[in-house]
């Protein structure tokens, strides 16, 4: 059924279709409407789930872990400071290999206090062992909710999954969204089956300690299975396309990159505007491209290097800054380029912080800057704040 709904509502529909056993969440702007929608679904019976009204994000995620340890399909949602308040629980859930699915509404971090969208919250937590997906529109948000459970719960993966929606730009913006019916969703998403749970016939200890002599085995298995998630993501997207007719492009989406001399790499909803600008510039005869990174973890280094193979200059446009260094996406993209053995001229465009607008003109200027870089113009500091410095 086609509906005109917000990103949060779309995500809630996706969660409903996934039939979680337990939802455990604490409200925070701009995540609130997704948990409100789920609460209504539980109240009126559209969704049969236990909804835990926890008293904090720390408890939201730790309760989700407890539920997942019983073999329950489990969902939580948060944003910004709430995600940081969960931070220690993120590593528990990931290290315990509990495939909890979380929606994070990307929002700025205090101080200064700010409720609007940027991606500093989730990018600060890249190393906490979760799969991280960044979606660009509301249809992708709904579809990601369903696919997240399928990928996270796959026995080759068994890792928690964070789906990131840009705060307000997606969470509170309305778009037409195709909402699948329950029967189709049930066909697509099998029940969660795992050995990583309590067993009353053969009791187990879960989430124990492992000292120096064993610790690396757990870390290595975690890394190995995160890498293995890449092929599971492809498989799940293939099954999704077969069932629902919507095909997703894997861990990255390359748009007009094949013969591009300059490419702008970005995440999330701003990719839509960058795509428009790419089309404009192409119409002017300028060979530019867009690379949208969908998954930051597992990090698709090979796919990024491949997509940027022909580029003479590469820019990253990101709503994030690692103070004193550069944007975190930039660091990761440089790593992908360095792995292949050659790094072209690069620029890091920092924008959209605290909900700041990223304009069409700024994106055109960014491409112009990349063209100058490709032509050999030197720049002292590759980290550039869109809209000017303080």
């Amino acid at each position, binding site marked *: 059924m086609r509906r005109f709904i917000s990103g949060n509502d779309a995500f809630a529909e996706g969660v409903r279709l996934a039939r979680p056993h337990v939802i455990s969440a604490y409200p925070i702007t701009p995540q609130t409407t997704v948990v409100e929608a789920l609460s209504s679904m539980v109240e009126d019976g559209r969704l049969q789930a236990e909804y835990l009204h926890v008293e904090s994000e720390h408890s939201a995620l730790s309760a989700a872990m407890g539920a997942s340890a019983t073999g329950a399909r489990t969902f939580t949602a948060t944003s910004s400071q709430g995600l940081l308040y969960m931070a220690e629980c993120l590593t528990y859930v990931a290290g315990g290999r509990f495939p909890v699915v979380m929606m994070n509404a990307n929002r700025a971090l205090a101080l200064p206090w700010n409720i609007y969208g940027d991606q500093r919250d989730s990018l600060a937590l890249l190393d906490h062992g979760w799969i991280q997906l960044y979606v660009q529109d509301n249809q992708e948000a709904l579809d990601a909710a369903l696919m997240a459970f399928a990928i996270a719960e796959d026995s080759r993966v068994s890792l928690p999954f964070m789906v990131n929606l840009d705060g307000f730009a997606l969470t509170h913006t309305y778009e037409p969204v195709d909402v699948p019916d329950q029967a189709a969703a049930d066909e697509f998403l099998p029940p969660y089956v795992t050995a990583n749970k*309590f067993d009353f016939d053969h009791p187990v*200890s879960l989430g124990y300690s492992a000292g120096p002599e064993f610790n690396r085995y757990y870390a290595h298995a975690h890394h190995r299975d995160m890498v293995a998630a890449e092929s599971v993501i492809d498989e799940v997207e293939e099954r999704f396309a077969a069932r629902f007719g919507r095909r997703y492009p894997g861990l990255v989406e390359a748009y007009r990159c094949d013969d591009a001399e300059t490419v702008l790499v970005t995440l999330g909803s701003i990719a839509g505007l960058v795509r428009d600008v790419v089309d404009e510039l192409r119409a002017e005869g300028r060979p530019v491209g867009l690379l949208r990174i969908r998954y930051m973890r597992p990090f698709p280094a090979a796919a990024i290097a491949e997509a940027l193979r022909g580029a003479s200059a590469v820019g990253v446009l990101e709503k994030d800054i690692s103070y004193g260094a550069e944007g975190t996406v930039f660091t990761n993209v440089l790593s992908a380029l360095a792995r292949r053995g050659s790094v072209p001229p690069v620029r890091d465009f920092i924008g959209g912080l605290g909900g700041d607008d990223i304009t069409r003109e700024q994106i055109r200027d960014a491409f112009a800057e990349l063209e100058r870089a490709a032509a050999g113009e030197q720049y002292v500091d590759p980290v550039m704040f869109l809209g000017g410095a303080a």
Partner: protein
Amino acid sequence: MSVNARTMSDDELFYGHKACPGCGGALVVRQALKVLGKDAVAALPAGCMSATGFNFPQLAFANNAMITPFAATASVLSGIEAGLRAQGIKPDGCTVVGFAGDGGTADIGLQALSGAIDRNDDVLYFCYDNEAYMNTGIQRSSETPFGASTTTTPAGPSHPGCVTGKKDLFAMVAAQGIPYAATASIGYPNDLLKKVEKARDIRGTRFIHVMAPCPVGWGFPSSDTIALGKGIVDCGLWYLAEYEDGRFTLNRDPGRFASVADHLRSQSRYRALTDADIVTIEAHRDQVWQRLRQRCSCESS
């Protein structure tokens, strides 16, 4: 049949752990699980019992058990209970049970505990109280009593040790209208076992605060744990009480207290106390008991 020290099960569900000789906390876990049985699902935060019970491959729990984030004992319990119920797989007689220390309960875990009580989640929460952060090396918690020297409240020329008193968890959980709360001591095992059995059979959130002496942190021989657990009740510095259906019950009212000085002087953590400090402690004890007797109907004397 009522469980007591004579009739309790010989089955061990918590053994092979690495707790220190004479550990009071280990007795709490071991005895409680004997009453709750093998279908109990246990959650333990950072603390002595997780540090000594969960060392792969030396895993000490014979029932289902897991480690939780430090602040998250109660919220993990809530999640476990919700997960079992939502899937319809909770066995009859399955108790979802937490064991957290005094710091893990009265300090960092208090918010999650209050949340579980607020929701009246069907979980049983034990605080084993050894009166400091013993696992990390005897640092002060909000359950460390006045006058106790810890590594963060060291006795010295300025102070005899900790200058604050014990946070009253029992009154706090009762103030939320919890279905069942009790205090106990490993020095009175029959009282403890009876309370565990009663709590097992009540639905909703239950809380038992058990005094669990620590030979290392308190400074007494490891053979004296039970004697200290009894002595602290007999001298009135701890008490055995229940809160049920909105009513407080004092299970044991000594009438005449044993000597506080003798009890304190048997532990090296109180080595710097002056006689005047002991008078202060006795006066505070008497205030506590006045309040206790006011709110409790006395069960026995």
